[in-house]
């Protein structure tokens, strides 16, 4: 969230919308909470509270770039952060805990890991509940007005491939979510690029300026690349049938179960226009060049 001042809200007043409220959430309310702030992003109202007011600066910094302050009292999601640490009286070590609504979604002695989980669940909650678009777990860049969407779970190599596409001149949409509207147009989910040195290493956030890249505002359907990194794998793209392609993208949809009709519409609209290829890959720089070459040919062919 950039240059926004978030007003604290009265934690005794804010509550979940009835659809999302559970008796267990009332139990969580019995714990002692401080302050809290509300944001709105992609049509989702999200409240934040913690047991320690010193946490709020850190938690604010983890809000999505597009988030705007929200002063209301009703939320689709309330994120609750319990700061752990050592109790000097009993020498007991407490976990840092992350709750999304009533559900414990993260627990770690290490603060940075708990904050990672907090941020991941903020993004996921917005992606799941958003009525403003269909969130696909994917890297996405814009090239000549068209989107290159790289759906994939963690460790599929999305961020590495996105970084190489940016180096090659593509403009940035996201390394986490491609957001599709009902016409299949891709809109951005801006965040720093999250890179890992290896599968077990923590993520390091990098500014896209380090890759000489700019942000894109939106992009028409261009090319979807369903691929997985595998050391030494050969680049061997295969054009997928549309049904198979939709299933591949659906497998990476965050809110597919909540809004299946809109999800299917958006995926159909996108794949009506964008060919979908699948391949294994191993060399991000070479593969980025190949992907751009394919999209260039596609754009030139379609005039």
């Amino acid at each position, binding site marked *: 969230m950039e240059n926004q001042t978030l007003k604290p809200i009265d934690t005794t007043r804010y509550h979940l919308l009835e659809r999302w409220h559970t008796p267990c959430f009332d139990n969580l309310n019995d714990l002692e909470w401080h302050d809290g702030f509300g944001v709105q992003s992609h049509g989702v109202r999200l409240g934040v509270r913690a047991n320690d007011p010193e946490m709020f600066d850190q938690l604010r910094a983890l809000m999505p770039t597009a988030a705007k302050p929200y002063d209301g009292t009703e939320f689709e999601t309330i994120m609750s952060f319990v700061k752990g640490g050592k109790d000097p009286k009993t020498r007991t070590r407490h976990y840092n805990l992350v709750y999304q609504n009533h559900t414990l979604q993260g627990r770690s002695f290490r603060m940075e890991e708990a904050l990672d989980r907090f941020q991941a669940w903020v993004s996921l909650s917005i992606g799941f509940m958003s009525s403003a678009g269909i969130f696909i777990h994917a890297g996405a860049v814009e090239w000549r007005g068209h989107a290159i969407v790289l759906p994939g779970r963690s460790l599929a190599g999305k961020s590495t491939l996105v970084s190489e596409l940016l180096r090659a001149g593509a403009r940035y949409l996201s390394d986490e979510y491609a957001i599709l509207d009902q016409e299949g147009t891709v809109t951005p989910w801006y965040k720093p690029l999250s890179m890992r040195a290896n599968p077990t290493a923590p993520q390091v956030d990098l500014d896209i300026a380090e890759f000489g890249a700019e942000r894109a505002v939106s992009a028409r359907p261009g090319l979807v690349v369903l691929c997985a990194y595998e050391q030494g794998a050969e680049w061997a793209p295969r054009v997928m049938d549309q049904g198979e392609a939709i299933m591949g993208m659906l497998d990476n949809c*965050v809110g597919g179960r909540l809004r299946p009709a809109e999800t299917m519409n958006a995926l159909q609209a996108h794949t009506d226009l964008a060919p979908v290829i699948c391949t294994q890959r191993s060399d991000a720089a070479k593969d980025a060049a190949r992907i751009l070459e394919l999209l260039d040919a596609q754009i030139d062919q379609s005039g």
Partner: protein
Amino acid sequence: MSIYPAHRTEGVIVKKLKDETMIYDLDNHSATCLNAVAGSVWDLCDGAHDVDAILEQSLAQDMASVEVALGQIGQAGLLQQEFISAGPTRREVFGQLIGGARVAAIAAPSVLSMAVPAAAQAMSCIGDGVFGCASVADCCDPDSICLGGVCTSFPGGGA
């Protein structure tokens, strides 16, 4: 006795693609893709066509293909009543098609289904020692296991 198969009309979202039919099952959150042959069989499963009429009017080339398509559509939970076939299996039909070398493989019915993932399955992976995994697939370290909701790796071993 004639069989008049009928596909579900409630609790499903049907999308007609260029050559395929996509069906989203709202009851169990699964998606099914029918190729052109299976899709043409699906279209005729309206309770008014018996299997002979389906064979005649669909893209299926023989009764075995119709039965395989109906069996698979039924297995995906998309028929109002399960279709029980006494005919050959899909593997046998495919073997005949390949062995005969007279019909392109595209003439075989194909029905692919998948469970639509829950939201959390599409999120970033979880590091060792952190609570939040539902299965081993949620853990970043391929050698970790999900133990009591915590990604856990064992020295010198793994799962």
